[in-house]
């Protein structure tokens, strides 16, 4: 089983304060910690579990600046065999469509049975790249995948629908499967893994290596142009209860009392 895993190096924003960059078209990232996109962490885990069971190789691939090698190294330390980083000044401003085109050029001549990625990224949340890539490669796909069973020539997958319902599908291989969080328990990186990762191959490829033209990628090769970013307007603001923890607790209890909830 040869598996390619597409990952993204993203800023962790769930617990961080976010400010808009002076360009008005991005956020300030200097103080943010970057790591593997949460969904992709489940994808790399799923790939390594399959490799441990069935043998084969896991190749991890990303589009991103040098800093993104941290995420690739992390995947290598977890057990991936090879890594590829796709980078070029011309890739700046690529949306999901342009990103998928870059990945397509890098992947189309590689041997693989399966491509795994996360259903979406925690930063821009397009939930598009994997599916566009599958269409460009001419292979079937399934997204929101919560369970994968590999069979002879196909994968039996559970797709997560709304309200606790799942849809079981059979998808012919080779295929692209975009996983949901919770599909497995991503492992931590071991010291031994980090040491081994240093020896593993990490290839860097650019526009020319991939046979791409400048107008196919970056802003000119994208579907979407960001016109502006702003902090969402507050339509219904919560009344903020202030004070020390005990004062706040007292205020909450007053509110609950008034409503007969305590």
């Amino acid at each position, binding site marked *: 089983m040869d598996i390619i895993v597409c990952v993204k190096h993203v800023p962790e924003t769930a617990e961080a304060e976010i400010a808009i960059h002076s360009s008005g078209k991005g956020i300030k990232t200097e103080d943010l910690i970057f790591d593997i996109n949460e969904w992709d962490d489940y994808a790399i885990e799923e790939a390594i579990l399959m490799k441990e069971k069935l043998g084969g190789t896991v190749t991890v691939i990303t589009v991103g600046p040098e800093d993104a090698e941290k995420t690739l190294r992390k995947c290598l330390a977890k057990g991936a065999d090879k890594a590829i980083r796709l980078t070029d000044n011309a890739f700046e401003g690529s949306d999901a469509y342009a990103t998928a085109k870059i990945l397509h050029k890098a992947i189309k001549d590689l041997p693989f049975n399966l491509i795994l990625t996360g259903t*979406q990224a925690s930063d821009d949340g397009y939930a*598009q790249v994997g599916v566009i890539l599958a269409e460009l490669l001419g292979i079937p796909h399934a997204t929101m995948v919560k369970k994968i069973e590999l069979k002879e020539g196909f994968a039996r997958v559970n797709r997560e*629908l709304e309200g606790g319902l799942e849809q079981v599908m059979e998808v012919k291989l080779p295929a692209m499967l975009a996983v949901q*969080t919770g599909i497995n328990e991503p492992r931590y990186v071991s010291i031994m893994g980090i040491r081994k990762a240093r020896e593993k191959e990490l290839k860097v490829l650019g526009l020319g290596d991939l046979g791409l033209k400048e107008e196919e990628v970056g802003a000119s090769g994208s579907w979407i142009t960001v016109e502006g970013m702003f902090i969402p307007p507050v339509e219904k603001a919560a009344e903020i209860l202030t004070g020390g*923890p005990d004062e706040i607790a007292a205020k909450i209890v007053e509110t609950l009392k008034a409503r007969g909830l305590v």
Partner: protein
Amino acid sequence: MTELFVLAEHRRGELRDVTFEMLTKARGLSQKTNLDLTAVLLGQNVKEIAKKLADQAKKVLVVDDARLKDFNAEAYQKVLSHLISEHKPLLTLVGHTAFGIDLAPSLATELNVPLATDCIDVDFEGEKPIVVRQVYGGKVNVKASLRTSKSYIVTLRPATFEVQEAKPLGGEILEIPSPLKEDIPYKKFVEYYETPAGEVDITAADILVSVGRGIKDAENLPMIQKLAEILGAVLSCSRPIVDKGWLPSDRQVGTSGKTVKPKLYLAVGISGAFQHVSGMKNSDLVIAINKDSKAPIFRAADYGVVEDLFKVVPALTNKILEVKKSS
């Protein structure tokens, strides 16, 4: 006249809410831009559903085929690429759901039509759509434009547009012969799988204490559990807690979990991604505790506490105990 397509989403014989939300949005757009509103319905034996759509659109295009009975992106894409190529709608709206996420990106790629996904608003500037999306877990909004084209696809976030009743439009129902000629070779729908019901029904609780990523470690759960017990509440949670295996999936509030409407929803360390908020926003009273003042949960809460939950939760537990003892 140029059309505006709304792709009807249905499951097991029922139209999904997102369909009506899209139709509401589309009615406004079609009036503004002079586009004909067309609902597109793919399925098998969907006459009753078609009638419901006819009230809300000028035209309903129906493709009835056994291969379209349950959602299969491969079959749906084949039919839709045919319909869009024939009708050339200026805009096709699809729900940003498990259905739309699986369908829209490959459809747009095949047709070479620009796509914007997970939009919370869409409008036209001239003939060009302008969309609003949320990024970074709902902390930032993006206004974006799409590359100039003759046709566009936009997926709309569910539970974002309030459904408004319209006077019945009495739209014409047009049955189109299925363009599916051959088999669907790559993807097969097998069955639905219902996650087994757990021991606890969080939808029946009057008070929910709901916990999120902010508790950092499973070791901290008992602290929240204690608060819930003292409040006479049931413990629920947001998705990351289930993903990590700290609580079973029957405790999950949100799009992929349960929709709840308790008298009190106390959100502890929950940031408030839209998937979560859409599952609890109709609660009578929402109090949120989160140390990040910008957390989207505060937009869905009546009262907010911007503080470290590890300080507030024990203080609150003690205060309630005090009150209970004295009464």
